[in-house]
């Protein structure tokens, strides 16, 4: 199966090309087929590869396929090469499978839109770039996927380009991620200069052998790569673009800004885990950023009134969890949470999409309510998603993956109590805001106008059911550590990602580790019921009115002022510089010498006023000067 790897990314590229070149002559049905089919085919190929990988695992635990040498200058010869190891396999499966489902969903969801062809072309471009990103064997080739994903997210966020605000959101997304990409590029420069190669596996092996544990250069390289990851995965401090990215169509938000692209950072850090093992400080920074982000995003999600922005903040928070896992060297736990998160977050977004369509493009949850009876199917699906998100014990996949992270945050050799505490508080916040959404949207009496559409076509619902099944069942492949059950996922990933050391803890630790997060998530649900469920009890009302709380809610709503900070600190000076510099000061300075020349010319010309006697006077003066010079020298 080695030599079929190139087919996986090639099919969506083919779809993109066909749609771009021949798209305008196709009907809606053919566009839908050509748009969705490649993702499905790629999924099929991926599954086939997975099967052959599991049945007859290759000796090196990875499939490698070199297409051609990109170019060769002296010793530097980067290659267009694919590398499939368990990590890439999981990523590929998720991208293709979830991508296919979302494309199926959007064939009907986007039916009314006039940019139908453009939508599917961009989605195919995105899937192709994401696949290149996860399958690339060479850092430069990875960059092709990395920026391709950035480009397609820019195109899709700004899909409804007539609206200037969407364009601004798209630009903001691409520019902020580009800041991260620059850090990544500088990291690659450092790696190449020090290790002489940009082949990922080669570089990692060379790093292992040449760099000492905790070496400054390893830390620098790791931090730079982390910079790129933070930009793409919208972690602190580069997270301001994701909430605005909700300006794009909902399937886009589901696929790109929930399931796949935003986790590219997690993949990158997992892929280069050798660097992070070499420098504990870098790993600690990742953990701290993860913890801080999950708390920050959790609180912000609580205050959002737009259903999609709430989910966006929730995504940032969940990726915070993955960064936390990476920070404590629980590599496979992070990937596992990525897997489950992809399913239930996509489900939440798709159902939110249906809710918005039902409420005639209304995003504000304060104008919704009591939709339980109007759109029961969507309600149940949303409920499953929300449950998985808040990791209700045993019933949902979220429980297994998130609690594994919280568990390892404490018990891992590199873990810490503070990190664990952040995880637990985060769990509380997560269940609080997810069920706040459920109660405000589906329970209580109807606040806004009546729902417009209540029945949805099968092609829209079936993919969501599949996702729902995934977000329930998937958890069981990895039982919590202390259950001493099977851990299929970690074993499968062992060849690509090392298993973290576990600190020996007593029975008390075991109980604390497993029970507390479960209790906390259920408590969160009850608290949400108390605050938002029943018909406006006095407690909730009084809480809101107190001034301190109102300021807190306002700040949370605005994402803690990061946006305003960046605007004042960076955007405004840049605009001021550009505005005042429009007339190119340096050019005016340099070609300014023409001014005095002209003035001098004008002055001299006044001496030519036609009077003969002045000419003679000048000549006489000249003589006097010459004679004087002659005499003196």
């Amino acid at each position, binding site marked *: 199966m080695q030599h079929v790897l190139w087919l996986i990314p090639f099919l969506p590229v083919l779809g993109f090309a066909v749609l*771009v070149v021949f798209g*305008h002559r196709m009907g809606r049905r053919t566009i839908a087929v050509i748009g969705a089919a490649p993702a499905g085919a790629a999924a099929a190929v991926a599954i086939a590869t997975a099967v052959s990988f599991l049945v007859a695992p290759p000796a090196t635990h990875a499939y490698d396929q070199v297409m051609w*040498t*990109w*170019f*060769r*200058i*002296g*010793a*530097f010869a980067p290659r*267009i090469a694919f590398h499939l190891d368990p990590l890439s396999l999981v990523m590929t499966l998720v991208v293709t499978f979830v991508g296919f489902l979302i494309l199926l969903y959007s064939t009907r969801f986007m039916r009314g839109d006039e940019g139908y062809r453009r939508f599917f072309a961009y989605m195919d471009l995105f899937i192709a770039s994401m696949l290149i990103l996860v399958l690339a064997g060479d850092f*430069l080739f990875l*960059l*092709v996927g*990395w*920026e*391709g994903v950035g*480009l397609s997210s*820019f195109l899709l966020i*700004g899909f409804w*380009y*007539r609206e*200037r605000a969407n*364009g*601004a959101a*798209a*630009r903001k997304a691409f*520019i902020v991620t*580009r*800041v991260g990409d*620059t850090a990544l*590029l*500088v990291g690659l*420069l*450092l790696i*190449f*200069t*020090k*290790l*002489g*190669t940009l*082949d990922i*596996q*080669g570089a990692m*092996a*060379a790093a292992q*052998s*040449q760099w000492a544990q905790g070496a400054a250069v390893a830390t620098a390289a790791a931090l730079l790569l982390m910079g790129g990851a933070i930009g793409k995965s919208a972690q602190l401090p580069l997270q301001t673009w994701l909430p605005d990215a909700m300006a794009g169509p909902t399937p886009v938000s589901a696929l790109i800004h929930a399931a796949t692209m935003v986790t590219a950072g997690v993949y990158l850090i997992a892929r280069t885990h050798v660097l992070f093992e070499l420098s504990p400080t870098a790993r600690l920074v990742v953990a701290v950023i993860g913890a801080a982000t999950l708390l920050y995003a959790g609180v912000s999600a609580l205050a959002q009134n737009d259903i999609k922005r709430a989910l966006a903040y929730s995504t940032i928070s969940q990726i915070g969890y993955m960064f936390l896992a990476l920070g404590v060297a629980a590599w496979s736990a992070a990937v596992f949470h990525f897997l489950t998160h992809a399913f239930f977050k996509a489900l939440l977004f798709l159902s939110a999409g249906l809710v918005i369509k039902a409420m005639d493009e209304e995003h504000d949850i304060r104008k919704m309510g009591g939709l339980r009876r109007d759109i029961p199917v969507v309600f149940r699906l949303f409920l499953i998603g929300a449950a998985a998100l808040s990791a209700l014990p045993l019933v949902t996949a979220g429980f297994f993956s998130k609690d594994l992270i919280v568990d390892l945050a404490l018990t891992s050799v590199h873990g810490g109590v503070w990190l664990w505490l952040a995880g637990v508080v985060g769990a509380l916040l997560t269940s609080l805001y997810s069920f706040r959404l459920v109660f405000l949207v589906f329970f209580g009496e109807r606040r806004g106008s009546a729902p417009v559409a209540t029945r949805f076509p099968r092609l829209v619902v079936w993919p969501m059911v599949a996702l729902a099944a995934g977000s329930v069942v998937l958890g069981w492949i990895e039982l919590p550590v202390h259950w001493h059950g099977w851990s299929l996922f970690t074993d499968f990933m062992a060849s690509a990602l090392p298993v973290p050391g576990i600190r020996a803890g007593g029975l008390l630790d075991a109980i604390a580790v497993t029970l507390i997060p479960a209790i906390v998530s259920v408590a969160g649900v009850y608290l949400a019921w108390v605050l938002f469920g029943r018909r406006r009890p006095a407690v909730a009302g009084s809480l809101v009115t107190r001034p301190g709380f109102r300021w807190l809610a306002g700040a949370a709503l605005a994402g803690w002022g990061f946006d305003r900070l960046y605007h004042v600190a960076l955007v405004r000076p*840049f605009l001021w*510089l*550009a*505005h005042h*510099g*429009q007339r*190119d000061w*340096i*050019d*005016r300075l*340099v*070609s300014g010498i023409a001014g005095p020349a002209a003035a001098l010319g004008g002055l001299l010309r006044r001496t030519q006023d036609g009077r003969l006697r002045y000419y003679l006077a000048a000549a006489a003066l000249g003589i006097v000067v010459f004679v004087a010079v002659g005499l003196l020298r």
Partner: protein
Amino acid sequence: MSLVFLLAIPFAGGIVAWVAARWSAAACRWVALASAVAGLGLAVGLWAQHYHMWGAAVPSRSIYVEPVPFFSELDVPWIPQAGIRLHLAADGLSLVMLMLTFVIVAVAVLASWRGVRRRAGLFHFMLLWAAASLAGVFMAFDLFLFYFFFELMLIPFFLLVVLWGHEGRRRAAIKFFIYTQAGGLLMLISIVGLYFIHGRQTGTYTFDYLQLVNSGISGWTGRLLMLGFFAAFAVKLPAVPLHGWLPDAHSQANTAGSVLLAGLLIKVGAYGFLRFLIPLFPQAASDIRYIAMGLGVAGILYGAVMAFSQTDLKRMVAYTSVSHMGFVLLGVFAWNQIALQGVILQIVCHAFSTGGLFILAGVLEERLGTRDIGGMGGLWARLSTLGGFGMFLVMAALGLPGLGNFVAESLILLGTFSVSRPAAIVGSLGLIVSTIYALWLVQRVFHGPGGESKPGTPARLAPREILMFVVAIVVLLWLGLYPQTLIRTTDAATGSLLRTAPAMQSPEPGSSATEAQP
């Protein structure tokens, strides 16, 4: 002998085109196109003939002892009284530039197929005269002959801007002419100074490049002579403080003029740095290496910020050239194999991406009647194919990986990193700033609420317009995915250039790594 034909074909073609204009404008256009394509054919023939010779790993031999990587030289005395010879030669680098010249001229002829009505004959004569003098510059291996073509180029470009430009053309043309001429004359002082100093040192008074190379003039005289060359090439490149002429000239020239200016004229500056400045004065060049790299980085950032703030589409694209050429300056003074290959790749890719953007601006101006991007917007709805091409070209200018510009810029940054880390890091900031102006261009021109196009202009793109864009796209994709053909062509040339300037030699990135190569 075939090198002379590379000069003769465009000159003769120009005259025939001018004469043919008597009968019909179309005739002179076809003649012009034919001569450009013929020149290209000859250049490609030469390239194919010598392609197998290169690529072999050139072992490091002493300077110019091994067979000089030049070929089919012409060496005839021109002004014996002053020791000036008509010395034409070409190596991999010159050949790449020659092929680029003829392709861009052919595209320029296509670009002005409809645009130029008045005096079409004279227009094509100027176009081909410019092509001939450019070809001359890239083949001249006698310093005076190089200066002769360097100055000869000015007149056709000046007239192209003056006679067929837009409203502010006269002031812009004169500014362009004086900037370049002042730089050129300072270079003449250096050339003649070098001629005498080398003559006194070695007794042979000559302008021949091969003998003057690495003449080992160090100290302040070397630096002053080098500064003369630096002035001329920094104006041409353009490097930041001396770039004033570029935005005016580019925005006032017509489409073909801008394509030629952006595609070829500024490349002479880059070629001059590679071929003349550093090999002739290695010691002096290494003295100012970090200042020059600083200028390069300043160019990258300043050009990008200025591009963002423009309201005239052509001025905006012109400033992007300032930014991209900042990378070239950075790469040239990093002076190792990777950086030089990056510079050559950047030269070629920039010609196509910026040339394409100027053609786009020209097409837009025909249809919208204005260059002010305030009045544009919402074009995607009306001309989606043009939107597609425009998006591709903007992404190329942005340095999107998978396209030629990305490979070039990353090679330059890779090469620079091992020489000066801060320069590479600040240089890579250029990626962010170029994203800002590129997306700003897309936002104002393609997206946003729709403006309306001039009545009577064709809504769909004409086939020749599509052909031009397709040429640019194919080349950018080809150089993005498989640049090895270009790199192999210039491999021997860059190798010999590196050997000519040992004083400038910098560590090859990656070579410092021990042999733990997988």
